[in-house]
């Protein structure tokens, strides 16, 4: 198990990442090597990042998500943000200067069906 997150293979090349309280978004480098290893060993083509338990996305957290998206692109994995809370979507939309580079979906089921939105 990776520190600060639960990473679960949910079939069809999809991986589900559920961040926990131990995640430190200000130090993305700490997770990159291990995460890449797991994604590659599982043969993942999609990483679903579950924001259900995330009450706020500040600049640091957003930078972490962009960083993770860049990593996914390098490893040919698609990052999809799922289960974003309405309050989080609201505040993030208010603060963003540019559209986010990652895809978004309402929840895991939708993402698995391929129903995603690209904002960029």
């Amino acid at each position, binding site marked *: 198990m990776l520190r600060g997150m639960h990473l679960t293979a949910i079939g069809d090349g999809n991986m589900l990442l559920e961040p926990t309280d131990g995640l430190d978004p200000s130090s993305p480098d700490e997770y990159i090597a291990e995460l890449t290893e797991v994604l590659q060993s599982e043969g993942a083509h999609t990483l679903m990042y579950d924001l259900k338990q995330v009450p706020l996305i500040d600049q640091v957290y957003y930078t972490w998500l962009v960083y993770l998206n860049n990593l996914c692109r390098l490893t040919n994995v698609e990052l999809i943000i799922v289960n974003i809370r*309405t309050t989080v*979507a609201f505040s993030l939309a208010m603060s*963003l200067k540019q559209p986010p580079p990652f895809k978004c979906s309402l929840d895991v089921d939708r993402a698995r069906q391929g129903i995603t939105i690209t*904002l960029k």
Partner: protein
Amino acid sequence: MTKKKNDNKSTNKILIELFMTQVGSITNVIDEQGEKIFVKDNLLSSDEIKDYSLEFMELLVTVLHAGDVIDRRGVEYKALRRFFTEFSNQIQVRGGSLEEFIRYIQFLQKVFLEGLEHDANLTFNESREVLLLVAGIFNDISLDVFNVYLEEKERTIQAQQDEIKQTSTPITEIWDGVLTLPIIGTLDSSRTVSVMENLLSRIEQDRARVVVMDITGVVAIDSQVSHHLIQMMRAIGLMGAKAILTGIRPDIARALTSLNIDLDDVMTRSTLSEGLKEAFIYLGIETCRVDKKA
């Protein structure tokens, strides 16, 4: 010599005496005036006028009896003021105007001041003290009534504003998973916040996949309004739904172009029906005419 009779009495006591000697005529005059002002417009019944007059007299006597000087923080004085705020509230609820009620209060004050004229025993100073006391009491009452009126007006305006906000941005599910949001008027920051809150909740609740935002009813657009529109489209996308912007009239398009607003990442269609067609295409829904004769 008679004028020295009241020298040691407090102003309150003088007023009580004055009041007691003329209570019958004062009550009658107050009742009559109450009938004239409130009964003719069906704001109060004759019985209610009598009850209110009686309660007012009792409360006033209690205030005057409470001490030699009126304690404006005392419970008796507060009770008198509360009586008038409740009274004016009732008049307002029944459709009465502030003007009518203030006229009534001024009349009450006049009745007491006229009573002074009939008492030959009062010195100039005593009359002045009583006059100031009566004026002070009725000024406080008038201010309270005015505040009640203002509060009620503010509540009404707020309720109307809330209703306008709700009705001017109705979010409707016109198809399974398709929400429409016609925006009418202007989009300021506070309205954007309330629309976004409602819209994002509806996306989550209805599990909407497409939101068609129609701006046919938007009168004018500036950089702030366009910025709010883009924020709304982004928030919709973050929720995993597709946003389609429709109803961009030529003058709005010209304004957006001159403002150098980048709508590259926003899907736009000319009309609401075009937007709906696009939503159907996105959802993989095909519609066709049914030949009724067949």
